[in-house]
């Protein structure tokens, strides 16, 4: 059963990997002779103009800026919300949940108008503004839940020791929220990495494209051939950084730092 689930989720990825390594002819029909494997697809993608790593850098830059901005806003917001009592708490929570559910597609025409009037088009860092705005509700909700899980007496103890709000966050609360911060950051980064509609409308210069747009543009040269191999190679290259990220952060996501905080 577990194997089946694994196959279900990993299958397409592995197929993509296989496609990226096959010669175009081998994709259509099994080759009678010769080696079907090739790295030509990767060569094609990496040596394009502008080179593929440029898009990787663009997406990474946007992703990092988005993540940073989101966390900077979400942490104080979540902390404040967690302290809120009474009907306001309920109302704000509900509004955030509604905002988190809102379909992005309905926004992007208006966003385009905003970008135009504020001169934000073709600016990678500006792209992180709408991204952060879109990620914020979910990030706040996640972090609020994490704050709520911390025992209140920990902060009381820190207050009694004379720690101000900033010191409490820095020395006590945020270190304990490490796993929650890491998983929230990854979610935000991922959303920014995958975003298509806004990037498509805000960015037109080819050296500033983000990955999803760049991949979609591959092989736009001909209507008659679809460069499956190149698509696959680009997809594999595009997902590698994310895989790496999750692998690195895995330990901090899984480790339960708050263990032993209150009772044994």
């Amino acid at each position, binding site marked *: 059963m577990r194997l089946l689930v694994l196959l279900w989720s990993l299958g397409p990825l592995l197929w993509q990997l296989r496609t990226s390594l096959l010669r175009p002819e081998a994709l259509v029909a099994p080759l009678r002779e010769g080696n079907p494997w090739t790295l030509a697809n990767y060569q094609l993608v990496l040596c394009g103009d502008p080179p593929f790593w440029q898009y990787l850098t663009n997406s990474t830059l946007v992703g990092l800026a988005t993540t940073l901005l989101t966390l900077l806003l979400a942490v104080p917001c979540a902390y404040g919300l967690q302290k809120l009592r009474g009907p306001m708490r309920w109302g704000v929570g509900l509004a955030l949940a509604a905002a988190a559910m809102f379909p992005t597609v309905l926004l992007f025409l208006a966003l385009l108008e905003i970008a135009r009037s504020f001169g934000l088009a073709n600016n990678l860092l500006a792209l992180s503004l709408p991204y952060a705005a879109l990620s914020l509700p979910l990030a706040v909700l996640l972090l609020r839940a994490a704050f709520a899980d911390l*025992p209140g*007496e*920990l902060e*009381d*103890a*820190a*207050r*009694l*020791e*004379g*720690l*101000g709000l900033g*010191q409490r966050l820095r*020395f*006590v609360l945020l*270190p*304990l929220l490490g796993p929650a911060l890491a998983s929230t950051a990854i979610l935000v980064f991922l959303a920014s990495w995958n975003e298509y509609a806004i990037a498509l409308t805000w960015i037109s210069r080819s050296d500033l494209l983000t990955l999803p747009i760049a991949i979609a543009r591959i092989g736009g040269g001909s209507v008659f051939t679809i460069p499956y191999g190149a698509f696959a190679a680009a997809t594999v290259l595009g997902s590698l950084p994310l895989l790496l990220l999750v692998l690195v952060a895995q330990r901090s996501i899984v480790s339960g*730092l*708050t*263990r*032993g*905080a*209150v*009772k*044994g």
Partner: protein
Amino acid sequence: MSPSSAAGLELRQLCRQVGDRRLLDRLDLQVAPGECVALLGPSGCGKSTTLRLVAGLDPASGGQVLLDGVDLTGRSPGERQVAMVFQSYALYPHLSVEGNLDLGLKVRGMAPRERQQRIDATLELLQLGELRQRRPAQLSGGQRQRVALARALLRQPRIVLLDEPMSNLDAQLREDLRPELRRLLCGREQPVIYVTHDQQEAVGMADRIALLDAGRLQQVGSPRELYTNPANRFVASFLGRPAINLLAIEPGRQLGLRPEHIHLADDGGVAARLLRREWWGHQQLLWLQTQWGALRVLTTAEAPMHPEPRLSWERQHELWFDAQSGARLPPP
């Protein structure tokens, strides 16, 4: 400055109200320097609320907290020089024992060498030297409690507050730790408030007990005073185990008789019939039916048992209460 010049801690008409719930109602209490007062009462009686008000963790809805005559009411917890040991210990789980002690000193800008000296001295006092590199998760309950205590004492606080500091420990350890806790905390210059719901702990730890119920102070005094001279029915029934017998002898009045004050007699006294006996080793608890209802009697384990004994007691042990209000009444 307030007009009072009393040394120690003084709570004046202290109130805490949340919404329309009155958690603490005009509490007046004084704790002398070096004195340990136990706040005792059932859960929800306002004892932890009082502690949080003294610490400044929650704002008071009225009244004052004075230390050596100086009003602390508006000050933040950090400014009050109050140390508090929490029921959960509230150790920082991501820091070592040493780190837990160090954080408070560090943020106050104390020099590293002085910090180290203080930490070393405190760790030695509490025999925690070997554990200094451990994380809280790697410590036993008793060790965590000692670390929490160390963190509280390290700051040389002017008030020490303990919020059920032993209720997460097993009964044996609690009994063993009591003298140590008294040695470390009481008899110094600071006033100590010890919150507990366990009367044995309160009697063992405190010089005086303040008994609370439903946000109101019921009585404050030495354990002996509360036991022998309770202000009302609540105090009489809360202190003493097994609990006091309340007998409706006359309309409007109740007679309180402690199980240990009733004697079995061969003749005279009140007629009773034995319902059940519980053997406690050195004592036995008898459940007896009388004309006023069932009552409990505590006797020695060897007492000869008649199925229909007669009961007697001394007049001085009679406690009379108003049946309605529970207020103490003079003997008839």
